[in-house]
């Protein structure tokens, strides 16, 4: 009698563990990251600063389905991944005036750690969980355009020449 009940309990426990893994994915052990970065260089052709980080992740445990979550501006963004699960891409935007400049560090969590963080937030715990790895890159800032625009310079020069010609014309006609 006890046997089937115990096995049902064990089976239920196993199912709960499996479901929780499915919800948040596997974990990454000893991550090694190689990344490519793009950030908006100037404001003339863009209304906001865009950050795009593409990276490959090498985990020693070789997870098959790894979901990643990045912490950007105190909120979590799910990192998109390619169909072959080899490349990941993280992107977000910020207004030009508020976009951080210089060395930027982004904490990235795997599914398991992210689940723990969410649970802690829901239960009101103050304990902080360390990120699985960090993405670091440098954003030089955005170029806002030349302080003296070329059309203003051209207009000023031509305007000056015209003014001198106008003065000479007035002298001739006087």
């Amino acid at each position, binding site marked *: 009698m006890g046997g089937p009940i115990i096995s049902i309990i064990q089976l239920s426990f196993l199912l709960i563990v499996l479901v929780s893994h499915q919800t948040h994915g596997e974990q990454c052990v000893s991550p090694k990251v190689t990344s490519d970065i793009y950030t908006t260089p100037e404001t003339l052709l863009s209304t906001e600063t865009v950050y795009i980080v593409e990276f490959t992740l090498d985990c020693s445990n070789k997870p098959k389905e790894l979901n990643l979550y990045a912490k950007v501006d105190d909120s979590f963004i799910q990192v998109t991944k390619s169909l072959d699960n080899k490349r990941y891409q993280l992107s977000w935007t910020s207004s030009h005036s508020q976009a951080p400049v210089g060395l930027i560090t982004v904490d990235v969590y795997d599914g398991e750690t992210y689940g723990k963080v969410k649970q802690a937030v829901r239960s009101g715990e103050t304990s902080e969980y360390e990120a699985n790895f960090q993405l670091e890159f440098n954003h030089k800032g955005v170029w806002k355009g030349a302080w003296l625009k070329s059309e203003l310079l051209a207009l000023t020069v*031509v*305007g000056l020449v*015209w003014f001198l*010609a106008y003065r000479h*014309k*007035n002298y001739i006609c006087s």
Partner: protein
Amino acid sequence: MSSGKGKQTIITKDDELLLQNFSRNVTFKSSINFYMNALIVSVTPLWLFWKIHQMDPLEFGIIWIIMTLLSTWLVSFAYRNSKYVLKHKFAQKREDAVAREVLKSIPDDKKMPKKEKDERILWKKNEVAEFESTTFAIFYNNVLYIFLTILFSFYVLRSLNPNFNYMLSVGCSAGLLALFSTGTH
């Protein structure tokens, strides 16, 4: 001078020359000069609109040709008017200097009647006034045209699409140039 016998007034060659000098009409050579300069200055904004406003020459070629021809005509009209006003003023300003130069060029030992001296001075004065007024009219109107085109295309009409921007900025610049040239000063 002219001899008025009865009702007929005969105009001599001297009168004809005098009338031509003070007429608003220009010679054929001068007209060609004006149209060529007007064409060059009218074509200049096309480069601006092609490279900076990204207008495709094949797509907008017909509009460009029409507006260039219109602008050429208006700018040469402005040249003619400006030259007419300026010629008299230049003649007055340069009168003394030209007279001094002509008299200086006549050898002392050569006896020349006063009438011939006056004619030489008048001819030289006309030549100098013609050259200076033509050159200055072209220079002044070109500078004003470029100034107005830059002002209209990059500031006043910057929010319009490039096609209307081109048509209005070139049309308004050439039109204003023609309008200003009709003034008496």
